[in-house]
């Protein structure tokens, strides 16, 4: 799947904004948003927040978890843990990317947040590569992938399932020849 489609999915997540206009509730197919009161925070989907921000109709309030200190804590935890830790959002990478891109002026500490998220991503990806390697070497048939986020799963999609498919082909192929071989030799 194309990474922009993962981003598309992440745009459904909610984020708080402070509108600079007032408007009644808007009934969308995916749910109602608003009412908007100038100066009062309201939760909207990210796609809407980004659009309103681009029209300079709102300020974006950072997601609670997008805070440099707590992200750095999460990073240390990720480093120490053998398993994947639970991320604050299934789309942490995309949300950070979207919000920091469009609203870096609303978000204080944007640079530190960016670095922390990138570090977390790097740690997790290298962990993921190591565990995939171990999984393939152990010839596993099933793996639990709890706490892996959408983008992380997508990043190994072309490789991991394909590698497993090929291994299966080699194994079944091998077995078929073997039984064929033992069949003819008898």
């Amino acid at each position, binding site marked *: 799947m194309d990474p922009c489609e993962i981003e598309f999915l992440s745009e459904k997540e909610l984020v708080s904004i402070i509108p600079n206009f007032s408007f009644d509730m*808007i*009934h969308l197919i*995916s749910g109602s*948003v608003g009412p908007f009161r100038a100066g009062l925070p309201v939760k909207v989907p990210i*796609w*809407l927040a980004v*659009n309103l921000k681009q029209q300079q109709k709102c300020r974006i309030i950072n997601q609670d978890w997008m805070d440099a200190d707590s992200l750095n804590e999460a990073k240390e935890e990720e480093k120490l843990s053998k398993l994947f830790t639970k991320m604050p959002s299934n789309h942490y990478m995309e949300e950070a990317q979207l919000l920091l891109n469009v609203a870096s002026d609303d978000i204080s500490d944007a640079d530190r947040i960016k670095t922390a998220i990138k570090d977390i991503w790097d740690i997790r990806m290298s962990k993921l590569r190591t565990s995939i390697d171990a999984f393939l070497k152990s010839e596993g*048939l099933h793996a639990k992938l709890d706490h892996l986020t959408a983008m992380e*799963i997508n990043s190994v999609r072309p490789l991991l399932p394909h590698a*497993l498919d090929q291994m299966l082909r080699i194994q079944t192929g091998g077995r078929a020849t073997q039984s064929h071989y033992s069949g003819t030799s008898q």
Partner: protein
Amino acid sequence: MENNGDVQMTAENDDQEEEEVTAQSVLLAIEEAWLNEKFAPEILPHRSDLVDCMLQQIMHMEENMKRLDKEDLRLMIHRMELDRIKYVITNYLRARLEKIEKYTIHILSQEATRSSEECYLTVAELQFAKEFLTNIEMLFKTIALQHMPGNFQTFEVDTLTVKPNLQTYVFLRANDRINGIIVPGSMDEEIDLEPGSQHIIQYSAVADLVKSGAVKLI
């Protein structure tokens, strides 16, 4: 929660109110169907009920939008949302068409064994599949087969059949609790899925669960 395509804020009658409850859940169901279809190797049972319902919602919304002033903030917001929904629907339908084109013969032969209630293709898709096969056959005949010696001129359906690889590995998230899935290729190894847990496993082990909605592919 109120959430149908009504731009005007008045819910005119109770029927409409009921529609409002489902619009959001239908959208979520379509999104899940889209991802399942995208990641499953085989074609899944069609969800034209969802698609038709959503198309109706879209039409309804577009009607309402005509009544809005061009400067109205809502116009832009509704238009953006409709674009997002249309993207999901077209992508879903396109994913199905791709599979139909790839596995035409296989799908048609499977479909022939199903009754009209349990068929996987919609009427339009079935017609498309049949026409597609006829066209392929015609193409083969006019381009090559008719120039072959007599005994090579038949269009051999069996040798041209492409089947999806059901043993391919897929990522999934469990919606419900499921016990005792037998891992294919193992010695009776069983696994249990907790709701919300994520796994990678052979598609064949979970194909029925995908179709019943107990798990979703991610």
